[in-house]
């Protein structure tokens, strides 16, 4: 506040004169917020906060997009058109390995960022590589699943249910693949340029992206595979 240094009475008088109804002058819960995080009256946030925050907003929008595909799956779950049901196509064992690979990759991704935070290039690269490798295992298992189904004549063209199934799971697979491309680009950038400010910001965003894909996968694993295997 601008009033510091003045006797309280003078400050109070001035506040009343400026704004008799105290509109828009109440500090947030009586404390001055921390500077640099863009809250209250403290001015613009640091670049790091802005980048991370903006990417969060993007992730939220991405999750809204996934939610539409979830909704389509919920609507079309029983629209089998006389074709196979969910229970006929779920191979829980393979999905369990897929899930394990993806969750583990989230862990290694987090370890890579811990290494970034202490500016350890070697460990950052090692854990990013492991993340990518586990992501590749996941994508390959998923591709194997799709090819397997296709060989049994189970394709999205067969029924509304299969359309919704392939659409939702495939969209996630496309995201993981795109994340893998991004990861490879990031590894090259970190190697060549080191931990510049912009590179670290991008690593923050990549981490957020990768963890968000995990969260979406937990939804798919539960709604599509676990509940699907019961029906």
């Amino acid at each position: 506040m601008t009033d510091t240094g003045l006797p309280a009475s003078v400050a109070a008088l001035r506040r009343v004169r400026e704004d008799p109804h105290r509109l828009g002058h109440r500090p947030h819960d009586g404390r001055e917020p921390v500077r640099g995080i863009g809250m209250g009256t403290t001015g613009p946030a640091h670049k790091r906060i802005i980048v991370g925050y903006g990417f969060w907003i993007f992730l939220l929008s991405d999750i809204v997009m996934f939610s539409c595909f979830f909704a389509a799956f919920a609507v079309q779950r029983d629209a089998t058109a006389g074709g196979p049901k969910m229970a006929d196509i779920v191979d829980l064992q393979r999905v369990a390995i897929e899930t394990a690979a993806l969750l583990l990759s989230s862990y290694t991704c987090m370890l890579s960022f811990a290494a970034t935070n202490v500016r350890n290039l070697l460990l950052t690269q090692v854990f990013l590589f492991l993340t990518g490798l586990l992501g590749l295992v996941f994508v390959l298992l998923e591709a194997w699943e799709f090819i397997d189904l296709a060989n049994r004549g189970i394709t999205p063209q067969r029924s509304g249910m299969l359309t919704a199934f392939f659409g939702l799971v495939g969209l996630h697979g496309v995201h993981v693949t795109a994340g893998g491309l991004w990861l490879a680009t990031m590894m090259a950038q970190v190697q060549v340029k080191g931990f510049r400010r912009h590179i670290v910001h991008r690593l923050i965003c990549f981490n957020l992206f990768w963890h968000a894909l995990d969260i979406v996968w937990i939804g798919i694993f539960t709604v599509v595979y676990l509940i699907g295997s019961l029906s």
Partner: protein
Amino acid sequence: MLGKLGLSAIPWSQPIPLITSLAVMLILLGVLVLITVKGWWPYLWREWITSVDHKRIGVMYCLLGVVMLIRGFADAIMMRSQQALAIGGPGYLPPEHYDQVFSAHGTIMILFGAMPLVLGLMNFVVPLQLGVRDVAFPTFNSVGFWLTASAALLVNVSLFVGEFARTGWLPYPPLSETAYSPGVGVDYYLWAVQISGIGTLITGINIVTTVLKMRCHGMSYLRMPVFCWTALASCLLIVATFPILTATLAMLTLDRYVGWHYFTNTAGGNPMMFVNLVWAWGHPEVYILVLPAFGVFSEIFPTFSGKPLFGYRSMVVATLFICIVSMTVWLHHFFTMGAGAAVNTFFGISSSIIAVGTGVKIYNWIFTMYGGRVRFEVPMLWSMGFIFTFIIGGLTGVLLAVPPADFLTHNSMFLVAHFHNVIIGAVVFAIFAALEYWFPKAFGFRLDGRWGTAAFWFAFVGFWVTFAPLYILGLAGMTRRLQHINFPEWAPWLYVSAAGVVILILGVISQVLELVLSIRRRDQLRDTTGDPWDGRSLEWSTPSPPPFFNFAVMPNVEGEEAYWGIKLRAIETQQLSPEPNYQPIEMPLDSPVGFYTAFFSFVFGFAMIWYIWWLAIVALVAAFAGFVVFAWRDEHEFEVSVDEVARADRARREAREAILARLARQEAAP
């Protein structure tokens, strides 16, 4: 090699699109030749095409929007004249062409006319009002604009190469599925809207982050101008609902391209799922457009009434109320689906309740004028015309929100009249008010108000003459999108409506004349003060046009109506605040990445529409390569020297001191 593309794609047998597109291409060619002959390319490339300045991008958005508004208006003229000429006869537009005209009209007006204008205004105004130097992600902002522009180009290419959708502005399946729309029209729609949707999402993320994380010192949420609040609410809606559009159109694309069954009427597809999903985006979209319009009026009423906005806090609450409730009303677009009494009741009530928030706003604007010194400048005329027009549009909307009444008026001309009443009455009026209001800030000279006044009156009267008859026709039972009319008793109203379009044409001409004449007289209309309207928010504290870094020193806000407080203090003490200690400023470097990405997005979209797979792959790879190359650069910012900052700010201070001296003389005079 060229997929489905061949010489037969060009509409040789249809003179209207053929001649129009040839004329447009000639004009475009003329413009390109002129730019080349005059040697303007380096300037355009450096200062505009690669610019990441939010003001330049805002201006380019508005320019795109205005051109597309005129394009959409041409479609409107064709529709009104076709219906007036096709009473008991075929008219002059064959059905397959008329269907494309009304589909293109809706798509262009909403997504390529109104949206770019609203996004452009937010881009231009929000950082200036928040007292910051740019949006959160300036380069991304440029990418967003160019994606929207390339999508608009894609829509217009459909006029000459191929065809546009014949399905209405929202391509309802199963009509839009391959079985019933085998041509490329729907594909043009899908790829153009997808590309522009990504551009819109980018702007949404940008503005949300800017408002929530980048306000200048002292600018708490409740000190923000209402336009910033409405921009925030609108962009929150963009972030929350544009992904729904992306997902829905992606599903339709999968149906069309690879034979999936999301929305087909066979094999377990569900066409009504499309209708639900698309309106879960489509209704919030209306508020994405109209909330910033409300923000514009909330700036104009206080300025031209010489009073603070009445009920600032209730205005903020009403804005956020509308923002949230707008996501729970989508089903009122299809009460006739047969969802049952309980569901229809819920959506009927939630649709009616939105009128409460809007009503709060209307009263606030009226009370802002009450007791003020109202100046009837052009922006104020549009604003007052808006109150009158919008109230009637809102009331017919409440009528449509009652399910039993809606069963009678569903898809009738009554509905057409209603949504034009609210969209033209609020969004278009706000756009013209805003262009007049912020034009001097953007270009450094005012628009000559005389032709602007004429434009307002032509538009206002023309609007009512055009659309009031449609209400009557709707109640008489006329459905929308009729290519010919078999009821001669409707003829008088259709003729009146067509006459209204003539008045609207006069309005468009007046608006163009105002612009052209003002540009020619710009030296007399020059705004040297930076504050031509006696404004109240921070954008008026900068010179007109503002320097590219907006503020030499970041403002420190100490209350609501930030600039009004600074101005009063300066007038009271007869001096400006002491000259600050200037610091060098970091500004983002210009970048061609937006233009580059958009170019390849256009190629990708075009290739997908015509099934030219190799070209689509090439374009995707090129776009990705461009991103990698861009991400590789080391320098992202450059420094503006203290000298340059000081020079710009001292010039501004001189202008301000001149105002103070003038005001002192005026006060001293008897």
